[in-house]
């Protein structure tokens, strides 16, 4: 019997010590550079999106740190919805803090020069505001002028909207003020909220004289404090905080301001960074699909290398090195592009962030981009590339040889990491494992649904495409079903961008539609509030004189809680185990009294109990949700402090309230027979059909009843519109990253399938096809692809939008058909352009050249 050797002594070489694989990687890459670059180009857009937002976030967080004191205008601000308690002002004096104060309220302003009026936020400042920072005005340094008499300044947006110039007169309450300029920046102002209610600035002394502050007026007071040093400030906060809590006042210091602003922007950042995450994941899919095709094409060469003695790992390493190095290169390009784009985003966010964003380069973001890009290029290329290790050398003799299905530890590890990576990254971006996990699952479901919709769409098109259509149209369609064409993947990647944009369209339209709907068909679209009892009849008559319906006249009584279930507010505040929210205990409640439900309400628990005689107990109803904040249930007792008079009441029922529907709506509703004699103001609502009537009525109202304020819901509609415009612009901008990634994946797929396409076209030419026909077939094929991709995204967004509108927001589903058409047309045009650009060689190469290559 023969003696055989059954083991081979051979030295394995690590990737870094095996010079041959590096040499081979370079030799092979020389000719594939443009194609290899496409692998990582898929990364560029995703990395650029992530880096730009991360860098912007870092810059803004730094700016917040640097500007917090200036933005607050003080070291400490005490805020209250009634006059600041004397005990607090006494304490401030004893702490030797520099102080000033302001009061603000909603009010109507009448522009004398054009007779128009609108609701504004009127702020009265005492002297020496601000304690920090400065008020930027035009003309410069005129803010202090308001202290010298009946002078006012306006927010720039308000002045330009109503064409107000310096020297014009405005009426506030019973007084006229001369406008001395506009305010561009003011500590504590600006930002998205100023879009809703622009401000008018006057002196505190003047505010007191306007006659606007009457019983029932909702006025917010702020006390601005400045210390000499950090120790004094910290000690003062320690002293003031419990006092403020006791009286239901708020207290803000610089640290909190930083935290609040930081948190507010962080929320915006997290939302948008998820869009960047989508672009990155699409890029990952692009990398994986390109490498998959690349690895398949390299089979023959790998088989030769295996024949002459290369190990599986050596063959793998040759291509891995290429992908790895180009991954770093692509990441660097993406990161640098991201830093460039970062400078442009603040332009899109102008008016959303309350300060100018500075220019800076965030090195940590650059590193994040490099790290992410490299990680992604490794993770998503290794899985398809591992197949190279198992290419049988027999392929050199029989090209159809397939590798045996082998369990590979590498495959398993990489697959596990691929599942973990998006989850970990989403958690990192959102700062929460739960939110990140939810987003990851959501994205996964969206991708699966997109794939399903794409598959179904292709199936239906194939089945129902008219068989009598011309050859060119039929052939272009059949090209989509070419093996390895990746049509479905392309439909998902391009469709995802279309999905994001059209979902935005659906949500935006449905919400705007809801606001519009609120004002339709005699539903109230104008609310008048702060009507004193003696003005009630006059206001109602004015409405009737103008031919306006009086939809409801509701009495409002302001009160506070003094006890909940027999425990005083102080006791509850002192109880650290109590779950009741402090703001719910200390806030001012505006309640009404009636024995019926308003049509915006439903009784969901308990009952409405009437009060038949004065000795009966008082039963109130509470709105759903508020019971949780107050930690109460039906049957619990409450004591209300109604202007100094305690009123004990029991909760008898709970109402669900559709808050936007026909306002005003209330948290607490008392029965009749309890509050009729309490000091009260009235709110009324009406429906005004056209702007001309609205202008005339507002003018007459402000003249006759200057303290009565009016909310025009159409103005809110316009404001909501502008808010959507601002944020929507950024969403659309970021969705473009997804579409761009999809198109790069498309370019990669087109280039990868070039050889198959060349052969097909040669075949067509040999049977007589002209260049113009081949061009048309190519253009139509990509038009189909673009259309189907857009449809895939849009079908899913319409379905998802309908579900959201019907069951989540409970609003009427709507979408803008014209914008949808634009989305579809845009995606189609881009797809055709990218497809055609990358197919030029395929279309115009002479057939003989291909045949010669084939023969060679």
């Amino acid at each position, binding site marked *: 019997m*023969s*003696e*055989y*050797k*059954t*083991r*081979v002594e*051979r030295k394995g*070489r690590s990737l870094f010590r095996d010079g*041959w694989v590096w*040499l*081979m990687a370079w*030799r*092979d890459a*020389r*000719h*594939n550079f443009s194609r290899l670059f496409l692998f990582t180009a898929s990364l560029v857009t995703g990395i650029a999106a992530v880096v730009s937002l991360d860098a912007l976030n870092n810059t803004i967080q730094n700016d917040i740190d640097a500007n917090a004191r200036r933005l607050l205008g003080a070291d400490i601000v005490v805020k209250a919805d009634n006059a600041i308690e004397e005990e607090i002002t006494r304490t401030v004096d004893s702490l030797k803090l520099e102080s000033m104060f302001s009061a603000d309220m909603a009010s109507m302003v009448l522009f004398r020069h054009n007779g128009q009026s609108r609701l504004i936020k009127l702020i009265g400042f005492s002297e020496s505001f601000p304690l920090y920072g400065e008020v930027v005005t035009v003309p410069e340094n005129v803010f202090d002028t308001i202290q010298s008499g009946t002078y006012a300044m306006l927010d720039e947006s308000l002045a330009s909207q109503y064409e107000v110039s310096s020297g014009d007169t405005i009426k506030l309450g019973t007084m006229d003020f001369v406008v001395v300029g506009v305010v561009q920046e003011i500590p504590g102002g600006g930002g998205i909220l100023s879009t809703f209610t622009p401000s008018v600035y006057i002196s505190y002394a003047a505010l007191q004289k306007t006659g606007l502050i009457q019983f029932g007026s909702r006025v917010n007071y702020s006390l601005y404090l400045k210390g000499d040093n950090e120790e004094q400030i910290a000690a003062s906060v320690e002293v003031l905080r419990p006092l403020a809590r006791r009286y239901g006042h708020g207290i803000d210091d610089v640290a909190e301001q930083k935290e609040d602003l930081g948190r507010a922007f962080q929320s915006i950042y997290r939302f948008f960074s998820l869009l960047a995450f989508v672009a990155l994941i699409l890029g990952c899919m692009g990398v994986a699909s390109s490498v998959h095709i690349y690895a398949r094409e390299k089979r*023959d*060469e790998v*088989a*030769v*290398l*295996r*024949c*002459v*003695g*290369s*190990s*599986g*790992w*050596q063959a793998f390493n040759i291509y891995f090195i290429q992908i790895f190095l180009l991954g770093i290169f692509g990441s660097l390009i993406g990161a640098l592009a991201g830093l460039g784009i970062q400078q442009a985003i603040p332009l899109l966010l102008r008016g959303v962030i309350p300060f100018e964003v500075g220019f800076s380069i965030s090195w940590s973001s650059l590193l994040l981009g490099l790290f992410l890009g490299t990680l992604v290029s490794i993770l998503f290329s290794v899985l398809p590339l591992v197949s190279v290790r198992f290419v*049988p*050398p*027999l392929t*050199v*003799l*029989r090209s159809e040889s397939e590798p045996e299905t082998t369990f590979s530890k590498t495959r398993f590890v990489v697959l596990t990491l691929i599942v973990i990576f998006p989850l970990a990254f989403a958690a990192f971006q959102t700062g929460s494992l739960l939110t990140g996990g939810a987003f990851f699952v959501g994205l996964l479901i969206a991708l699966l649904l997109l794939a399903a919709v794409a598959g179904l769409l292709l199936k239906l098109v194939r089945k129902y495409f008219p068989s009598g259509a011309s050859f060119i149209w039929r052939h272009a369609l059949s090209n989509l079903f070419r093996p390895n064409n990746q049509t479905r993947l392309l439909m998902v990647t391009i469709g995802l961008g279309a999905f994001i944009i059209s979902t935005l369209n659906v949500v935006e339209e449905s919400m705007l539609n809801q606001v519009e709907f609120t004002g339709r068909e005699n539903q109230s679209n104008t609310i008048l509030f702060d009507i004193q009892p003696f003005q009630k009849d006059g206001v109602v008559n004015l409405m009737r004189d103008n031919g306006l319906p009086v939809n409801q006249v509701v009495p409002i009584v302001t009160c506070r809680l003094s006890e909940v279930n027999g425990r005083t507010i102080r006791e509850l505040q002192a109880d650290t185990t109590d779950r009741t929210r402090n703001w719910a205990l200390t806030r001012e409640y505006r309640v009404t009294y009636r024995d019926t439900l308003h049509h915006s309400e439903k009784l969901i628990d308990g009952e409405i109990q009437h009060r038949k005689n004065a000795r009966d107990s008082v039963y109130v109803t509470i709105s759903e949700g508020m019971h949780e904040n107050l930690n109460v249930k039906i049957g619990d007792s409450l004591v209300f402090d109604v202007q100094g008079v305690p009123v004990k009441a029991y909760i008898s029922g709970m109402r669900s309230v559709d808050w936007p529907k026909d306002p005003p709506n209330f948290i607490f509703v008392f029965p009749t027979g309890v509050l009729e004699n309490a000091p009260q103001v009235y709110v009324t609502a009406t429906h005004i059909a056209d702007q001309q009537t609205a202008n005339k009525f507002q003018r007459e109202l402000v003249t006759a009843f200057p303290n009565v304020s009016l909310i025009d819901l159409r103005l809110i509609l316009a404001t909501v519109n502008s808010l959507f415009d601002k944020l929507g612009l950024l969403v659309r901008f970021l969705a473009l990253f997804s579409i761009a990634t999809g198109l790069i994946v498309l370019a990669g797929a087109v280039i990868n399938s070039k050889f198959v396409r060349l052969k097909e076209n040669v075949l067509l030419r040999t049977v007589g096809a002209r260049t113009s026909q081949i061009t048309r077939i190519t253009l139509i094929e990509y038009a189909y692809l673009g259309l189907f991709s857009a449809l895939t995204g849009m079908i899913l967004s319409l379905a998802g939008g309908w579900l959201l509108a019907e069951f989540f927001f409970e609003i009427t589903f709507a979408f803008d058909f014209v914008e949808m058409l634009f989305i579809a047309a845009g995606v189609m045009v881009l797809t055709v352009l990218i497809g055609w650009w990358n197919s030029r060689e395929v279309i115009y190469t002479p057939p003989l050249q291909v045949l010669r*290559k084939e023969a*060679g």
Partner: protein
Amino acid sequence: MKDTVLSVEDLTKVYRSGDKELVVLDHVSFSVEQGTSLAIIGPSGSGKTTLLGLCAGLDTATSGVVSLMGYKLNTLDEDERAHIRNQYVGFVFQNFQLLSTLTALENVMVPLELRGERNVAGKAKELLNRVGLHDRLHHYPSQLSGGEQQRVAMARAFITDPKILFADEPTGNLDDENANHITDLLFGMNKEKGTTLVLVTHNLELARRTQLILRMKGGRLVEQEKVVAV
């Protein structure tokens, strides 16, 4: 007595497709001594190429033993077999199998570079000169004719001074003139370097230039014919 380079014992290869079995090699046995030449001939589908693939360690047998340079190939994994090929085996294929992204010179250098050897360009140039391609060193395969590509493949096969060279229809894609040139080179280098030559061919004239002809039919070795030198 010369050393046995290749021995095949009771070699069987069965392909399974669902429930069906296709026996492509049926209990084949033979051995080849150092420095000799052998041709495997037979009609299409007779199992010639399968036999060559198994002998060269490109595939694994269903049963039986292939011993190459004393190594029992069935017991080695793919990377170990690749190492054996690199150390002892050379290949020439019908469709040349050059790496399209490498120049002629680089293609020839690859097997030695794989061994970790340095400064191999000199030897590669020498071999390319020997096959008449001294002026084509930096040409890519697509810039070479079929005959030239096969000569590059020959240079690559001989650069490691292999103990055994497997050639699968080496002249199958060439015109007569190029085929003769390649055949002369193949046998010339075989003689010069003492390499064992295993040849799969349809060409009886080519087979007659070897010392032993194995005739295959239906997966079985039906005849071993010693060729008498004329």
